[in-house]
């Protein structure tokens, strides 16, 4: 879809105002435009673009010193109502250069700026909380893993570490509760530092990085095809969403057009993944309040979706299904018929359970009015996915960016107004219903034909972008290939990166005992945000 001309004109005016008369906006692909690289292209232009309705997507830094340049910081700004993606960029001479933070004006940049600074050795100034995010204290200060001259396999000695610093909240009766990194349940590690007054949370400081595995670095130098398997393991519950975003990014580099049947099958898998997770989350929410009926039935139902995933892909998490150019396995007619028979049955089963669970007084008493996130916080922090839609903010890649096949089948985002735990639960319930409906429509309109297209050689150092509404929200993946046709840089922004601070906002002034419930209602990925 081309970007509408009036919107391009408005964009051009803003760019000239921010960067001077020489700066221009040029279309760089369907629905994409780019500005720069220019001095101030990040620190001056991005706040201006956000002021006219842009949303900060991903920050992508690259080390181009080997190409006779320095570091380049690119920001992807999304204009959801126009369905446009604008790439702006600012060059830096090299590690040690100063990066002027925009977090004070664009809070959504908060974590990604810190990540860029620590990974590439930029000095972050004017940031309210400029410490390292993923590299813990035992990593020497001079180590910046994403610089290209740093070897991915190098295992550094553990440096003598000082205890981590947390923002301090002081006052009479205020005390701290440290939680983690190992949590009580069977979940990923992270550290939560609560500052509480009595039973109320005044402030929550979230310290992550425990799941950091150098995933982005591992992509570098891999053949394009092997990147899919790594992308599948960015966040296990979003295996297919991440694989799809990665494949889209590489496919846009190689200018492949994906066969219609593969597009439909990918959507089918994406909805299946959404269902397994949304249904599982509803169960986990019920489990957190000791509501055994919901916990048991939803976790039983989750198994149904996982087993159907295994039927179509050979793996309960849809591993191995997505591949560059399409999908690895076709949906056989017998499988399609089995899915068609199964869908109405599982829908009735699911709705019966959900109707009982979400109408129960004991559930409402715990879910309603707890962990409320305001629409303003959603916009400021760049919250995405069901967490945004539960606060009444209509953000959904499937609808906003008119992607196939949702454009043809008709899709509108599910919204709930109140922003509390109940809203986030209800958004999941209604989205699961919508996904079941969508699967029926996808099966009914499934085109025939090939399921995989051959790939051409990727253009070197161009940026391919993958943009997917995963079950947890918007996934943005950028891929660049080198002159040898291997991966040169891959950057993935999992929705969790944006949403963690939404959780910190939502729990303020709530009871400490409601924290697990609030946390589960966001259900964010640690691995996806730590990479």
């Amino acid at each position: 879809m081309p970007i509408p001309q009036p919107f391009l004109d408005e964009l051009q005016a803003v760019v000239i105002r921010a960067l001077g008369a020489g700066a221009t906006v040029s279309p760089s692909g369907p629905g994409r435009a780019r500005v720069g690289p220019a001095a101030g292209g990040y620190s001056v232009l991005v706040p201006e673009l956000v002021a006219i309705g842009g949303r900060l997507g991903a920050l992508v830094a690259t080390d181009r010193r080997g190409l006779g340049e320095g570091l380049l910081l690119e920001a992807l700004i999304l204009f959801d109502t126009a369905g446009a993606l604008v790439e702006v960029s600012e060059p830096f001479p090299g590690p040690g250069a100063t990066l002027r933070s925009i977090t004070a004006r664009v809070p959504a940049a908060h974590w990604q700026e810190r990540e860029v600074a620590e990974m590439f050795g930029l000095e972050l100034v004017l940031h309210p909380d400029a410490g390292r995010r993923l590299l813990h204290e035992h990593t020497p200060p001079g180590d910046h893993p994403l610089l290209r001259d740093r070897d991915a396999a190098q295992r550094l000695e553990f440096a003598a570490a000082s205890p981590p610093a947390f923002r301090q909240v002081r006052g009479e009766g205020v005390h701290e509760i440290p939680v983690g990194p190992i949590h009580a349940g069977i979940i990923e590690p992270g550290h939560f530092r609560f500052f509480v007054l009595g039973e109320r949370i005044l402030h929550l400081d979230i310290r992550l990085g425990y799941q950091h595995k150098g995933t982005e670095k591992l992509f570098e130098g891999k053949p394009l095809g092997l990147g899919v398997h790594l992308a599948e393991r960015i966040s296990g519950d979003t295996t297919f969403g991440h694989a799809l975003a990665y494949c889209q990014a590489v496919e846009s580099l190689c200018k492949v057009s994906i066969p219609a049947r593969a597009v439909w099958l990918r959507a089918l898998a994406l909805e299946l993944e959404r269902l397994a997770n949304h249904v599982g989350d509803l169960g986990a929410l019920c489990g957190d309040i000791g509501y055994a009926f919901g916990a048991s039935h939803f976790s039983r139902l989750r198994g149904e979706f996982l087993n159907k995933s295994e039927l179509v892909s050979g793996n309960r998490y849809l591993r191995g299904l997505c591949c560059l150019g399409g999908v690895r396995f076709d949906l056989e007619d017998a499988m399609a018929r089995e899915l068609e028979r199964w869908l109405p049955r599982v829908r009735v089963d699911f709705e019966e359970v959900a109707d009982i669970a979400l109408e129960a007084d004991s559930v409402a008493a715990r879910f309603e009015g707890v962990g409320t996130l305001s629409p303003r916080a959603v916009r400021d922090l760049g919250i995405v996915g069901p967490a945004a839609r539960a606060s009444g903010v209509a953000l959904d890649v499937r609808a906003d960016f008119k992607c196939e096949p949702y454009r043809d089948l008709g899709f509108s985002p599910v919204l709930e107004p109140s922003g509390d735990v109940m809203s986030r639960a209800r958004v999941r319930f209604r989205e699961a219903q919508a996904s079941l409906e969508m699967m029926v429509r996808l099966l009914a309109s499934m085109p025939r034909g090939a399921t995989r297209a051959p790939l051409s050689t990727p253009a070197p150092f161009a940026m391919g972008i993958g943009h997917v509404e995963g079950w947890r929200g918007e996934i943005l993946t950028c891929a660049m290939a080198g002159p040898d046709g291997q991966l040169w840089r891959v950057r993935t922004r999992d929705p969790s990166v944006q949403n963690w601070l939404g959780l910190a906002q939502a729990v303020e002034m709530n009871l400490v005992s409601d924290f697990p419930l609030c946390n589960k209602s966001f259900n964010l990925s640690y691995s996806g945000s730590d990479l």
Partner: protein
Amino acid sequence: MFANIWKSLLTGVVTDDGSRGATAMPERFRGRPDLDPDRCDGCGDCVEACPSRVIRTVPGSNDEVTLVTVDLAGCIFCGECVPACGAGAFRMTQELELASSSRDTLVMEAHLGEGEPPKTQAAPLRPPGPTLPVAPIGDVLRERIGELFGGSLHIREVSAGDCNACDLEVQATTNPIFDASRFGIHFVASPRHADMLLVTGPVSRNMAAALVEAYNACPEPKLVVAVGACAAAGGIFAESGQTMGGVDRVLPVNTYIPGCPPRPQAILHGILMTIERERPHLQKLVKRRSTPLQKASTPSRPT
């Protein structure tokens, strides 16, 4: 309230108790890869195609490949080796209960030409096959847990850099279908209550210290089970310097459970393997515990 009861009655029992017979895995399910040494020509195409780099070719005296090894511990069961092999030597079986107490027995060897026969897995507890009801594993589990752990095996799960898929499959062992608690398996919040640590992930550098602390806090017998390809051998993250490359780089490991992620019944099987293997040691511990406690001498207080 009546709606709850009615719905649950209509749903019936969903727990896999083996009474409905063995369930076949779907045709596409990918279990242990198998390599046919008669077909393999040692070209090494599979080595390039393997995302977690677990296939190795070993040249013999005249520089020709005479041995191909596949390390199941780090295998992610993607099946890319099957189409990569022009000679059709690889196939994916449906065997999924692959846990072993030693890394070496997880390395499959295929000797090319006239050599020794290929060595596969160490003898499993029951013959591997495509049919996998949970109950037979569970029956032995219940018996052993009764004998060695007073009927309840307490497990602390520690996620140390995994992608969360293994966590989800460990969680799934507690759902109504697998229902591990009926065998006496309970997941606990504190390592101080735990007989066993289940560790997932390649152990990220940032989790190494916390994992060791959790281990130190465990009482005897401190059983450690590495769940999934990352924990067992680093998996697809083995080459990243930001990970330790597997649990056994940090802690002594009793059992390795291959899989990416391992299915819930493979995890239960791995837990059983651990107990089975440590049984003589555990029996001694039980004996010591069941002898009447000697009157503790009054600890001398520091003055």
